[in-house]
């Protein structure tokens, strides 16, 4: 047991000695791209989801509409089978909602009187906005369905893009590790050949290289996180200025800790796979003659 631990300790140390900062940096830069993309999408998701739940249509009524007219319209909307839900928003409530939005309360306070009309908010999966606009008492119809759909589609495209990027750069990580270890094995060809003659097993000879692949991946993952952290920090400085001018405290968030950890582990695993592919091939080719 202690011999086993000692042999692994020595292999780990040898792997550590062979670790090249430059290779870890290459892997880190490659991985930082999908990681940053993921962090950006995750930060934007809450904003997107709020808009893209159910396609909503807002019906703004004529300012001078009478109570009975409004009630008749409400009854008609509720009777319509294509409409999933109907919510009446009286002008007072609309004003209250709006004054809760940061930065707008002062504007509304300055107005003196309520400029907002009564409104119905209906949800429907069908495109009936044009039809609703013709109903009596309706002044204006706003359907956010179309651009909510567009936003959702854009988000899906961005997510797919990040996924493709992650897969490509993950493959690049395996290839980089494969090649690093191939070259490393070639430079140690003499030592490997002599070790085989003296009775070293393939797993003993390969062990430092497995550790090298694993460590290179892990360090690459950490480098990627550092790059993403630094880039988001820089970005947020500018975003803060922009967001504050809109009264928002929006910031791009760093990857959640669990996902950051997962990235590092995954990078390590891919490095190990690269090493495994490389060692398996190379060690068979180096046979003493």
């Amino acid at each position, binding site marked *: 047991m202690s011999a086993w631990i000692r042999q692994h300790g020595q292999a780990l140390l040898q792997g550590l000695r062979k670790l090249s900062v430059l290779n870890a940096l290459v892997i880190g830069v490659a991985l930082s791209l999908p990681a940053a993309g993921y962090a950006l999408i995750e930060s934007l998701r809450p904003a997107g989801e709020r808009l893209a739940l159910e396609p909503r249509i807002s019906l703004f009524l004529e300012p001078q509409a009478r109570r009975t007219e409004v009630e008749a319209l409400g009854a008609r909307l509720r009777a319509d089978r294509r409409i999933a839900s109907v919510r009446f928003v009286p002008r007072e409530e609309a004003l209250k909602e709006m004054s809760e939005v940061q930065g707008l309360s002062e504007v509304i306070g300055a107005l003196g009187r309520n400029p907002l009309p009564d409104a119905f908010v209906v949800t429907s999966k069908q495109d009936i906005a044009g039809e609703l606009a013709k109903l009596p008492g309706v002044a204006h119809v706003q359907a956010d369905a179309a651009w909510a759909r567009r936003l959702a589609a854009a988000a899906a495209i961005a997510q797919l893009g990040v996924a493709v990027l992650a897969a490509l750069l993950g493959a690049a990580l395996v290839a980089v590790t494969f090649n690093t270890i191939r070259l490393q094995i070639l430079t140690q060809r003499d030592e490997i050949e002599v070790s085989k003659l003296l*009775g070293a*097993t393939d797993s003993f000879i390969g062990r430092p290289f497995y550790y090298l692949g694993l460590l290179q991946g892990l360090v690459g993952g950490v480098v990627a996180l550092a790059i993403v952290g630094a880039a988001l920090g820089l970005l947020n400085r500018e975003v803060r200025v922009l967001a504050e001018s809109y009264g928002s405290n929006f910031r791009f968030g760093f990857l959640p800790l669990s996902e950051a950890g997962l990235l590092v582990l995954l990078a390590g695993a891919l490095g190990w796979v690269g090493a495994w592919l490389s060692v398996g091939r190379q060690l068979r080719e180096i046979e003493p003659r």
Partner: protein
Amino acid sequence: MVKFSAVAKRYPGGQEALQDVSFSLEAGELAFLTGRSGAGKSTLLKLIPAIERPSAGSVVVNGQNVASLKRAAIPYLRRNIGLVFQDQKLLYDRSVFDNVMLPLAFSAHAPKEAARRARAALDKVGLLGREKANPIQLSGGEQQRVAIARAVVNRPAILVADEPTANLDAESAQRILEIFVAFNQVGVTVLIASHDRSLVERYGKRVLRLEGGRIA
């Protein structure tokens, strides 16, 4: 200890290196293998640690038939065979001491025990004072003695040496052979290939003569 039965070795391309070779070495025996270069000495020696496999016949080492040994079992066979080559195969990126330590790394000895064994092996070949030197600083004879120390550090039952004295002057060559004889006296089975018949005959030991791939 080593038994060849009707062994033949054909290399790809049809070249017949060995034909119908049969002999056996008893435990604790020392024998020389002579013959001109090209007679098949190196090929014969390479069959013992399974560097090459026979095309026909059987090679039994320490009770194991090397011809049918699985790839994964070969390292364990080699740990019991000390190999010495004409070109030493030392590693020049490390000290004499670390060269001798190499086989101990994968046979799981405690570090102190390993260092003790390496020093003992260097002592037996008379190089204890040079353990910190790089092999490149040593003479040819001294380098060959480092290779012998490395071959015996795991205390193998069999020592196989391929032309260990070929590139050495007469005095160094004799010293090397005396080291082999000393190991044989403590019970190690030794097989030494050499083309130098006058050197071999001086010891009055058993001589196997190869001619054109056959035992003459």
